[in-house]
């Protein structure tokens, strides 16, 4: 009896100390519950249809996969090289432009002049309509473009590493960060110089899709392509990290770079492999985003980088799995928030989710779990 009462008293005081020490955790929990209740009542009351919620979820998952795919590269290079690469967004754009120029040349060869095709319709006759690129009408050109985006971005990251980051390898993270901002600006305006600053449409023609039975949403061929490629690549990263010697060495190096050196791991080779994998994923992400949205612009990678950073920080910067998971969460937050707020503010919602998560778990969801 006596111990029972003491047990209750103990539980009560422990509960009180949680409330006192972590009021923010409690606040976040309350907000989550309120939102969930409101969502259900909106669904039951009919002010929100199941269909539109399903569309939000689908869009959120698609966006989340893209952010995750692009975020993995950023998180990987952060964990192994020790700095956040601000040029990452512009690697995304570079890969997309290189890939799509290739796709246009192949798809439109013979009908439009090669020079116009290379410039992706910024000037001349190569417009989205006249070239008519889609996964269905020009599959070969799309595959070739995707491969080119990957290869080009890998080459670009290795070149920039050789010219800029390698000579600074032993410097502090902050110096490398500032250097990466310089790289970002240089790349972005080089793209603007060649392709201009307009936002041309890229894909053309009708894109078939399939209806998901039951909820009535439609998934088109480009969304499906993106989802399949992104999931495939993310699984591939997981397999490399967990089951190969290189992946183990990457995790070892992320864990403790000095120890990796004295263990005999050739750290420069691992760094190079990291850029290759990270760069390849980034190029693929850039190409696939453009395929799905159907437009391209010189600064779209930079704009996306904000969301990518949100996802990577949310997941715990340096954790590859955190980047994947954070990407999905940020993607879903920025679309499902449409239930409550107008579309102009969805990015705000994504960042609010990030901020609240960090208040609850300051090192990020996967923070402290080093996984490269």
């Amino acid at each position, binding site marked *: 009896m006596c111990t029972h009462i003491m047990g209750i008293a103990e539980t009560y005081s422990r509960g009180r100390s949680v409330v006192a020490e972590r009021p923010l955790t409690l606040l976040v929990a309350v907000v989550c519950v309120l939102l969930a209740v409101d969502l259900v009542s909106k669904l039951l009351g009919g002010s929100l249809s199941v269909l539109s919620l399903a569309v939000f979820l689908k869009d959120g998952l698609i966006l989340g996969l893209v952010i995750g795919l692009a975020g993995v590269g950023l998180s990987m290079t952060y964990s192994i090289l020790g700095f956040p690469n601000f040029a990452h967004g512009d690697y995304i754009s570079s890969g997309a432009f290189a890939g799509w120029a290739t796709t246009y040349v192949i798809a439109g060869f013979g009908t439009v002049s090669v020079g116009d095709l290379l410039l992706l319709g910024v000037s001349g006759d190569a417009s989205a309509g006249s070239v008519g690129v889609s996964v269905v009408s020009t599959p070969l050109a799309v595959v070739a473009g995707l491969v080119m985006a990957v290869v080009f971005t890998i080459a670009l990251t290795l070149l920039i590493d050789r010219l800029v980051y390698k000579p600074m390898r032993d410097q502090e993270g902050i110096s490398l960060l500032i250097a990466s901002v310089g790289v970002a600006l240089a790349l972005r305006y080089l793209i603007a110089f060649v392709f201009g600053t307009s936002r041309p449409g890229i894909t053309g023609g009708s894109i078939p899709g399939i209806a998901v039975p039951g909820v009535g949403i439609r998934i088109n061929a480009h969304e499906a392509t993106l989802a399949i490629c992104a999931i495939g690549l993310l699984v591939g990263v997981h397999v490399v990290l967990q089951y190969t010697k290189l992946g183990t060495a990457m995790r070892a190096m992320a864990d*403790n770079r000095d120890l990796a050196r004295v263990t005999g791991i050739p750290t420069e080779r691992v760094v190079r492999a990291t850029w290759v994998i990270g760069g390849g994923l980034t190029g693929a992400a850039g190409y696939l985003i453009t395929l799905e949205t159907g437009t391209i612009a010189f600064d779209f990678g930079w704009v996306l980088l904000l969301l990518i950073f949100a996802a990577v920080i949310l997941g715990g910067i340096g954790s590859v799995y955190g980047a994947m998971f954070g990407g999905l969460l940020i993607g879903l937050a920025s679309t499902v928030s449409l239930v409550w707020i107008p579309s102009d503010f969805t990015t705000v919602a994504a960042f609010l989710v990030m901020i609240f998560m960090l208040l609850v778990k300051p090192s990020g969801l996967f923070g402290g779990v080093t996984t490269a």
Partner: protein
Amino acid sequence: MSDEHAITDDTETGESDATTDGLLSITDLDAGYGDLQILSALDLAVGSGEYVSIVGPNGAGKSTVMKAIFGLATHMDGSIAFDDEGIGGLAPEEVIRRGVSYVPQNENVFAGLSVRENLEMGAYILDSVPEERLADVFERFPILEERQSQRAGTLSGGQRQMLAMGRALMLDPDLLLLDEPSAGLAPDLVDEMFDRIDAINDAGTAVLMVEQNAIEALSRCDRGYVLVQGQNRFTDSGAALLDNDEVRREFLGG
């Protein structure tokens, strides 16, 4: 140009005189970090299968000796030869390839990797994991086999030290460098750790050990060095150093 050659030749002759059958021979070494010089004119040798301890006060440069051998400190002057081949300034992976392994003092396991993955990383320079070496390490440290799929970060201090040594033994080195192997261990584990080092040495691996616990280190080793301010103050057999009044008074607390 020809003058320079003459000078180099002279030094090399001098070296080989001093290091007849040494496995590791350090001659007249100046080393440090950047512009800061820590070691000056240091001579040190380890023979095949020998057990050598380096003791001395804090800041004497004991760990710097190990870092210099492993290419982690700035090599300023003098020479480091292993198997009669200069290794001063080589990258760590090249030093390892020649038969030297190193167990640093702190954070000497990959906390996020499993025990087995830690050991596999010890054999990174080989094309495949040498199964017989792995079996050998597991036989030496059975606890590591039991916990091979556990994350190294969850091991106790003593187990981590065993894992770090096991990883260094994966390539069956001729010389094992141990930096403060007893640091941070509970007192009852210290003796066990030194016994394990004895066993490694008995199996034929030469050991060069830096230790804070000077009495234990000197009573276990074949030969000892007392390092003070980056210089060699005393060199003798471990027992003789323990008997030396000056060494006892100044460095062993009585």
